[in-house]
């Protein structure tokens, strides 16, 4: 009786200890509150920032002085000054923008425009569209290669990953992946592109040299059927060895060893766990739960949910500045 209790206390203490040491700010976009909620690394709420309508994906600029947020209902990219915690400007985007990525020089933003079936490029300085490339239905995930020459875009409807040559401004290859592909992570030092497939309970591993699918990671959760496992958000540990995958409707996150592609521990979080990010110190994984309107902080060492905090209506993405 005492032993498990003591262990539990120890675990809680340890969990708290790791959290207590963590520094930085956590930003969560709330789709229905039109706000970003700001937390400290331990999950204490610090502030709320009013932004454009239906904020979803977020990224920092290189110095983290600014945060960009894509607003799906007002068709804007909001620019938030992180020091003052205010939205200072917007860039007009196409109809229903969702996910984006920045060019390596930080000057261009590449956005999936869901309702126009294009990936559009915008110049951040002039706030003007530069070009667009036609994609399959409902483009979603966008990832620009570190050399800035190519972009990968998922099409949720066409079940492919488009390889876009940003110089030629056209799709040069379609990679057939699983059903309803959503997001990307570049892993193994850029040699592998990991793609989450919402309706296959899988993540596809694409070889970035020849664009072949060289592996598939399948998820299974005890007591749940395959159809209830809907992977979307993913986050890589700072050492690049571990990928955390949000299993959506299965209400779990799963750990995957990048080298062996073996699925490791699973952690129960909130409802529809789709937004993930790992703190740069590698200790804490933040998971936004879209249907329970909260965020779970997971201790990555012990693979335990440490605490869950309320974050406003329909949290989409989460990012951390150390």
């Amino acid at each position: 009786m005492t032993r498990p209790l003591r262990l539990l206390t120890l675990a809680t203490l340890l969990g708290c200890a790791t959290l207590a040491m963590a520094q930085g700010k956590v930003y969560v976009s709330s789709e229905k509150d039109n706000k970003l909620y700001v937390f400290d690394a331990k999950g204490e709420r610090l502030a709320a920032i009013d932004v454009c309508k239906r904020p979803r994906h977020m990224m920092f600029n290189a110095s983290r002085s600014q945060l960009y947020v894509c607003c799906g209902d007002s068709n804007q990219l909001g620019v938030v000054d992180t020091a003052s915690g205010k939205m200072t400007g917007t860039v007009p985007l196409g109809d229903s923008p969702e996910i984006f990525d920045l060019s390596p020089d930080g000057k261009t933003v590449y956005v999936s425009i869901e309702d126009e079936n294009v990936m559009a490029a915008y110049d951040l300085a002039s706030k003007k569209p530069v070009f667009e490339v036609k994609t399959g239905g409902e483009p979603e995930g966008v990832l620009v290669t570190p050399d800035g020459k190519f972009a990968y875009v998922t099409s949720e409807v066409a079940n492919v990953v488009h390889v876009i040559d940003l110089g030629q401004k056209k799709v040069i290859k379609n990679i057939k992946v699983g059903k309803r592909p959503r997001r990307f992570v570049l892993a193994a030092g850029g040699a592998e592109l990991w793609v989450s497939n919402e309706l296959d309970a899988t993540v596809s591993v694409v070889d970035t040299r020849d664009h072949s699918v060289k592996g598939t990671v399948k998820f299974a959760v005890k007591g749940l059927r395959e159809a209830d496992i809907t992977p979307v958000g993913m986050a890589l540990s700072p050492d690049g060895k571990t990928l955390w995958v949000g299993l959506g409707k299965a209400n779990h996150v799963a750990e995957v060893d990048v080298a062996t592609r073996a699925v490791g521990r699973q952690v129960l979080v909130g409802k529809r766990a789709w937004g993930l990010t790992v703190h740069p110190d590698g200790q804490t994984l933040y998971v936004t739960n879209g249907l329970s309107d909260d965020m779970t902080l997971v201790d990555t060492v012990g693979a335990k949910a440490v605490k869950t905090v309320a974050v406003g209506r329909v949290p989409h993405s989460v990012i951390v500045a150390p």
Partner: protein
Amino acid sequence: MRKAMLLALASLFGAPSAVQAAAVKLTLAVVSLAEDPRYAPRRLERAYPGHPQGRAVQGVRLALEDAAFELDAAGIELVLREVVLPDAAALPKALADLKAAKVQHLVADLPLAELNQLVQSAPAALGGAMVFNTGLDDDSLRAQGCAAHLLHTLPSRHMASDALAQYLAARNWRKVLLLQGPEPGDRLMGESFTRAARRYGLKTVQSKPFKLTGDPRERDLANTRLLTGEREHEVVAVMDADGEFARALPYATQWPRPVVGASGLVASAWHAQWERNGGPQLSRRFQKLAQRPMRSHDWSAWVAGRAVAAVLVDDPKAPLAQQLKKLRGGSVFIDGFKGPRLSFRAWDGQLRQPVFLSHIDGVAGVAPLDGVLHPRDVLDTLGVDEAETACRQRP
């Protein structure tokens, strides 16, 4: 060196266009009837729940647009052919034309008699056929009237009834006043509801016939307050396959009781206000294409197009018989924008799918409801399960 590598890369990327050049061209035909009474202008104006608001061709067209990229990547070009029959007698000639164009995939946007005629004659006329029923919820088509090459994308009436019964049971609104219409369609609806009520433990505290009439001698059959005067029930379930009587019922009952079935809370395959699983995007694309909101029949037409695309992409070289086996074997999945991936039931060719419980303004719930269990697939709690099926035709 670097340049050479880029060049090599470029030629690698060039490869798929060669594949695209050799694209296999296939045709999906949507067969409908010029004078189909369901699409008469005055009928469409009524827009009763559960009735189509336009022809299936619009949903199918959207599906082919949606799937174009995926098909293209698989080296397939799938084109749409609209066949509007002047009357049922024109079917053999139309099938001969389709045969000449090597068409084997059909969406039947037809009334029951014409659909049966098409299902019976298509395989011989076309040298094999795959027919989708996207507009009729008749359970008979999924039972003794089924066929190995017939697939259904609209939820069957039993699926709709089960969805509604699950919702009522989950709310614990178990005492039902059943208002029964006189038409054959009303009777089928009533029988289906009674079956579902038994399955989910609802109690019909009273069943009353209704009639559309202004005759004062029949006012106890037509007056909504007289029909709903007993206090004991918790919900009023109205069995009106047409919809005119049911429309007059919500907020017009004697006691404050919700109306379900043919008006009020209805089971539906789609609702334009469904806001999860990419629903708004699909509804918006349809609105753009058809200039009207997407409804259940549009969704079922769209998902039939998606099913054809999915099976073609799954194995572009599979002959038709094998495509049917794949679809009816449940090994090909379709993203229906309703959450889980969807597949067809092996035993009767019905697409298993979540069913919305919706009202005019939105979606109140989704069946299967939380807590409903099934040994294999919880979606199979809706409609006719393998052990109960009367269909004996499998590919």
